[in-house]
């Protein structure tokens, strides 16, 4: 294809579209399972406990420090399957492209998508592209369905969580939220902070065989606090986080302090929150810390009997309720 920018014609079913799919998408994503001419494909080699998930990706800006929309979409879906105990095997990919998007940028994003998929052992089995008019889309939206096979030998379910269990996180929280916010607002300073966008498959896999592991989730939108609220609601227990133990990078703390945000509510794209018995937690921690992505893993809290809420214990002995996110929080100091 010779165009520098995406035209409406790239979405109308004709030559332009054939070229876009063949020369850009299929070039990067080609694999034995992908047949761009078929209406539907058969998935070979799938046996056992099959899991499926789907997610849409709309991040702005589409390229940000430490990642981009393409790799982020792969990580998002791989991670959702990984924390459920499954290895992702196949994707379907639907791309909604805004008229005027630079073809070179699209190429970079899809190449990044393809590389991330390969690294995680996933093949794209089916795809679709649409072009929307200029001003009607954010450059590129990706919608991805993932099909995986369960390999975990422990039953990962919030139902197994009980008072006395402990909470872990695989690394610092809020990197993605802050770096993307700084990039989006074009403050002209990222301070070297990178998104944490990454596959958590190695971390999750490392814990899949532990019977004392109860539950895992990758905290994305709404961050660590929102995962903890989900646990509190589902279990009817209090989730108590130890403020001094939750890893947060200095740059993230500084930006949050300045702008009045709470890092616990900021998105992560490459972290795992796990709940386990104290004994299993020690093992999870040891295994995670042996991995490059888990070097800063930590035990950050516990499950307590009592009202279903999220409580933050400060280093000075204070206890604070972290409310569920509704809208932008309004000041309350009167």
């Amino acid at each position, binding site marked *: 294809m010779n165009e520098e920018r995406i035209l409406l014609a790239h979405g109308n079913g004709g030559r332009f579209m054939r070229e876009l799919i063949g020369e850009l998408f299929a070039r990067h994503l080609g694999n034995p399972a992908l047949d761009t001419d078929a209406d539907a494909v058969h998935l070979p080699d799938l046996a056992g406990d099959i899991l499926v998930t789907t997610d849409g990706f709309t991040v702005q800006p589409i390229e940000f420090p430490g990642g981009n929309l393409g790799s982020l979409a792969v990580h998002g879906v791989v991670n959702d399957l990984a924390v459920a105990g499954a290895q992702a095997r196949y994707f379907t990919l639907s791309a909604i492209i805004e008229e005027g998007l630079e073809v070179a940028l699209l190429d970079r994003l899809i190449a990044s998508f393809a590389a991330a998929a390969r690294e995680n052992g996933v093949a794209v089995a089916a795809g679709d592209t649409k072009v929307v008019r200029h001003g009607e889309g954010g450059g590129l939206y990706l919608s991805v369905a993932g099909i995986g096979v369960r390999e975990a030998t422990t039953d990962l379910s919030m139902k197994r969580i009980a008072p006395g269990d402990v909470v872990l996180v695989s690394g610092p929280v809020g990197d993605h939220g802050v770096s993307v916010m700084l990039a989006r607002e074009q403050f002209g300073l990222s301070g070297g902070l990178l998104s944490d966008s990454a596959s958590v498959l190695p971390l999750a896999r490392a814990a899949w065989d532990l019977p004392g592991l109860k539950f895992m989730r990758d905290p994305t939108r709404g961050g660590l606090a929102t995962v903890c609220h989900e646990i509190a609601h589902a279990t009817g227990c*209090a989730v108590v986080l130890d403020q001094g133990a939750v890893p947060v990078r200095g740059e993230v703390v500084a930006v949050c302090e300045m702008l*009045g945000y709470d890092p616990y509510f900021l998105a992560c794209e490459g972290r795992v929150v796990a709940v386990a018995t104290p004994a299993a937690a020690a093992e999870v921690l040891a295994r995670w810390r042996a991995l490059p992505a888990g070097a800063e893993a930590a035990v950050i809290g516990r499950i307590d009997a009592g009202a279903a809420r999220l409580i933050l214990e400060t280093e000075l*002995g204070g*206890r604070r309720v972290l409310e569920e996110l509704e809208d*932008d*929080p309004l*000041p309350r*100091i*009167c």
Partner: protein
Amino acid sequence: MPDGQARRIRLSGHVQGVGYRPFVYRLARELGVRGWVRNVVGAVEIHAEADAATLAEFTRALVERAPAIARPQPVADRAADFAGHAAFAILASAADSEPDIHVPPDYFTCDDCLRELRDPADRRHGYPFINCTQCGPRYTLITALPYDRPNTSMAGFPLCPDCRAEYEDPASRRFHAEPVACPVCGPHLSYVDAERRIEGDDDALAATVAALRAGRIVAVKGVGGYHLMCDAASDAAVAELRRRKPRPAKPLAVMFPADQALLRASVRLDPEAAALLASPARPIVLLELADAARLSRHVAPGLAEVGCLLPYSPLHHLLLERFGGALVATSGNISGEPVLTDNAEAQARLAPIADAFLHHDRPIVRPADDPVFRPIAGRPRPLRLGRGVAPLELELAEPLAQPVLALGSHMKNAICLAWGRRAVLSPHIGELTAPRSLETLAKVAEDLQRLYRVQAERILLDRHPGYGYRHWVRGSGLPTSEIWHHRAHASALAWEHPEVAEWIVFAWDGVGLGEDANLWGGEAFVGAPGRWQRRAGLRPFRLPGGDKAGREPWRSAAALLWEAGQAAEFAPELLHQAWLRGLNSPASSAAGRLFDAAAALIGVCSQASFEGEGPMKLEALAAAAGAALPATPGLPLARDAAGVWRTDWSPLLAMLADVALAPATRALAFHRAMADALVAQAIRLREETGAGDVGLTGGVFQNRLLTELAVAGLAGTGFRVRLAERIPVNDAGVSFGQVIEHIALCRPTT
């Protein structure tokens, strides 16, 4: 058989837990009245037989000669069948179907008990839990009504034969004194520090006094919770308490020996303040320091006033007498939480702060912090309701259609149960950010409903979607009505002055959610409850970092400068960029934030370690300016696009930053400018509405200087000024205001 007439008399009000029945018994015997008296739920019922003249005298004396802490209200007096009783008797309590219940507050130690406490021959000599029908704890130990011993936290202390004899003797001061106790049968002290545990009242007290003398910090269990105590004269001890709590700057209350000699040497004490300090509530009173050398300079750094209180329980009397000096007596809590009441929990949570503990084994059923008053414009004004005041029982001018529970505000939370023509305001609970505050709110809500035998059918709450009780409200399943924050403030004040039909009310505070989705707090309303119209305010500005501005006055200073198109060198560029883009920068018209900004611009407080630190330091600084008359910038007043009168604060910026003026001069000029702006708004609104009664409410009017300047300015231009005397103007009064506003909103429109 004696002859004469018979009457059946019923008295309500504070008649239980105050020795009222023994009083009736003694009165009847003195006058020769026969019959009986008994407790019914929430009231006292009397059957009196005598001749007509004696009966009339008896009826009059029932109110006029009642015990000091009793407040009887006759509710019924009718002729009854003459039964020919031979004597007068006290009958057992009767269960009753029509409750008009009054829950007594906790009373200070009476003079009779103090005499016995100090009398070596008395069997309660030096006993820290001495009490009688005229004194002792009530609200904090009642578990259920009617108020009888099994329904108190004294249920676990069976009376010894001596105490039982007094308890059952109608002639005794301790006849049915429910918490009555003595060293044989009652509660005891224990002292615990890192090395030892000392049982026994005398030894535990001696160890406590020794620890305090050695400069240690001791957590002392009192009536409504624990205090953290240390030697108020010791810089090292007070500084250490501040470091550990941590509480770098917030003023600490000081308990002075009961003889008041040290008190009178330390603070300016006029007769009104002295009477307030010694009033039954025995509150903390903010008083001007006279001789700063008497107390550690760390007690109230940067402020000209100190919170003073006198011993109110026998334990405190013994402690202060033995210690022989003033003691810091600050709430034993974690910042923002209700005061701790449980021995084990206090021991665990105060361990990082206290070197030692003085516990006792009388359980505290619910917390009650010390109440706080500040004399402003010639009258004591409540800043916090608590032990000795709460539950504050109030009468409504109009009845409620259904019982309601009003939950008030997020900060300084206090709740209000209201039904019929009655409202009961709880003591201070705390900031609802802490789980313990939410647990206490739930408990107090349940307790009030159980004690008063009323089930709320509706919950009243603030419009703010993020207040800490929202989750609890959703779980209650009750219908709700949401009340605007500043309307609640205005309505609480309006209740205190029912004679005013048409108001101009200034509601100045920190921030509360306003009706245009902005954060209000510098508003002027005209009207009355149920029909407030916001007609004037301050020029809005956007707060960079949202709630962070409440603790970091420099942010409000930057907001004003940026809003006025000026640079703020002290603020980071990242924040400016975020502010320009509207990131977490909600618009506000709050006077409280304007005071914060002024404190930061003058340089007295750019980071606050507690809510209100900036304004408090600014006021103290201004008060030190003496009689100097600074040039006060006039602030333009003009209508905005919506027709609301807006005061433009921007002329203040140059004056506040003018280093040619002394900081104290600038602080005073700022106060004057704000008071003048208020008066100018009031004049405009009077021109438009004809209203001549001005009310001042909201936390900003805890500022004595501002309030007195505004009162003088308003009075000088012919306004009648109305201030609060019973309900705190800060957010502690919001729940009661919600009730008043709700009643008015429910009133059928004509």
